[in-house]
């Protein structure tokens, strides 16, 4: 908490359990622990990369931060104010400052709405400007994201995936937000287009002073855009560090395996890949102790019983692993990450 700049957004003990409903009476039989008590803090202007396998809870985390999903437990603070309990009406002014960019460039644009209407909608909902000033703003935004003003009259099906993603970015920027959650914004795009969109996001960050939570399963992309990287596994954070530290010296065996799985252009180095055996366990019934113990190459007895906590080793480098921080080590005072 004694960080020099207070975080723009902070979440403490963020948890989301989805009930699994069965039978005709909607009894809640069990819960899927999509996100299980994670802490996040992003200072203004930073890009935090959030990586993990499909189903590890990274998308749920992102959507909770912008309040598209209500957390089961935990606190969310935006500019120091708690927002997790706000209702739709009191949340609306806050929404102006946080936006989200989606993965699927096809599903994220309403096929029945013109680009003009799509980009102007946030302005309309938040009652910013009149119809004419909105038209002008849309035209400006289109230029900002590298499209042409005349594109405003067109419909989504007339655009390519990369162009659609630019429209989605323009929509998110329309209200001049401070925080943008990028939920796998380039995963659905061709590699060459990915680079363009990533560079666009980086430029926009500079021009608009944006703070990003960048969710991706692509460690290469995350490395390119992030300042810090957070690795999630099965609803838990296993490692957080500054980008350089994480890529140079990954502490958690899961992070090590993920990094070794990044495709390398050099065939001689490929053999060093560490393959994680097995599949990701079900978040409805997560393993006891360390959640990674079923697949960890270094599993110890203690891993099956005691859950490791996120602890700081090197400065600003946090990991949740008994190998890195043996259980006997006294726990440092808990601090937010």
């Amino acid at each position, binding site marked *: 908490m004694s960080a020099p700049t207070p975080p723009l957004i902070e979440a403490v003990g963020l948890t989301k359990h989805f009930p699994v409903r069965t039978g005709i009476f909607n009894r809640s039989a069990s819960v899927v622990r999509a996100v299980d008590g994670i802490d996040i803090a992003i200072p203004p202007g930073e890009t935090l990369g959030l990586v993990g396998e499909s189903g590890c809870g990274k998308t749920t985390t992102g959507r909770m931060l912008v309040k598209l999903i209500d957390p089961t437990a935990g606190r969310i603070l935006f500019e120091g104010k708690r927002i997790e309990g706000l209702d*739709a009406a009191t949340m*609306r002014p806050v*929404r102006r400052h*946080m*936006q989200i960019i989606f993965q699927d460039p096809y599903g994220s644009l*309403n096929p029945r709405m013109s680009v003009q209407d799509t980009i102007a*909608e946030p302005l309309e*909902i938040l009652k910013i400007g009149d119809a004419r000033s909105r038209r002008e703003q849309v035209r400006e935004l289109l230029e900002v994201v590298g499209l042409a003003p005349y594109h405003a009259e067109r419909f989504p099906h007339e655009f390519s995936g990369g162009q659609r993603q630019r429209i989605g970015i323009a929509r998110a920027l329309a209200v001049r937000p401070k925080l943008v959650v990028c939920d796998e914004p380039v995963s659905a795009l061709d590699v060459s287009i990915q680079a363009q969109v990533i560079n666009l996001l980086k430029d926009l960050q500079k021009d608009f002073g944006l703070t990003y939570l960048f969710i991706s399963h692509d460690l290469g992309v995350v490395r390119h855009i992030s300042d810090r990287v957070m690795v999630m596994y099965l609803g838990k954070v296993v490692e957080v560090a500054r980008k350089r530290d994480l890529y140079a010296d990954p502490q958690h065996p899961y992070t090590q395996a993920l990094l070794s799985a990044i495709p390398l252009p050099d065939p001689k180095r490929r053999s060093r890949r560490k393959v994680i055996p097995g599949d990701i366990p079900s978040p409805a019934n997560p393993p006891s102790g360390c959640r990674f113990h079923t697949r960890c190459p270094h599993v110890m007895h203690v891993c099956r019983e005691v859950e490791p906590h996120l602890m700081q080793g090197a400065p600003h480098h946090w990991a949740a692993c008994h190998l890195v921080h043996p259980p006997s080590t006294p726990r440092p005072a808990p601090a937010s990450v």
Partner: protein
Amino acid sequence: MRRLLRHKLFVTGSILVGLVTFGAIFADLLTIADPTRMSVRTRFEPPSLEYIFGTDNFGRSQWARVLYGARLSLMIGLGVVVLNAIFGTLVGALAGYFKSLDNILMRVADAFMAFPVILLAIGITAALGPSSVNAVIALAAVYTPRTARVVRASVLVAREMEYVQAARACGAGDWRIIRRHVMPNCMAPLIVQLTFIFAYAVLSEAVLSFLGLGAQPPTPTWGNIIAEGRQYIREAPWITVIPGLVLAATVLGLNLLGDGLRDVLDPRLKVQQ
């Protein structure tokens, strides 16, 4: 639109429905005969140049009766479609969008759908009293759950789309999301469904009239023309056969129309033509 015109079945359907609609709208221009005027001298005239469709047991012009009958049959069909569109959309949208209402509304719909269509329609008209307005109400009530199910299914899909999430991220309310994002993307299956409902309604209305539960004689509808003619089917088959054929052609036309619309509007069912 060009795809529609290339769809042969759709074109056939449109022509059939178009002809019947044309006949219904311009009934008073296409015949000078009064469909209710009886004449003893002209009973059981077979089709001829003077009486295109022949005459019935009261000597009334069948041509005039079928045309004016088309007017009423199509009006009733249209009435059912309009009521269906309103209530089916309302119930379907509420059930699909609000999870808390889904179970209740859909169980009620299931209860309605558990009865055979005609039986339920007969029951409702019998309770309300036989008339064409009550036939519309009964048929609308019978078919609304079907439309509601179709709407609900597409609302369930549209609701989960990311553009809905995007709108929600800006603080859009439920009403706005339903109106701007969900409903416009559910129109295609709804239009197709309503076309089929039109066909069923015209057919069911004929059944109700045939049973004497629809429009009352002497007002002609296809159902009661067929009902009145059935006693003379051996001596004067044209009285029943011609309105029967017109009815069949109309229902066929509407079904083809619906099929064509579905093929064109639903990209997942793209069929080679």
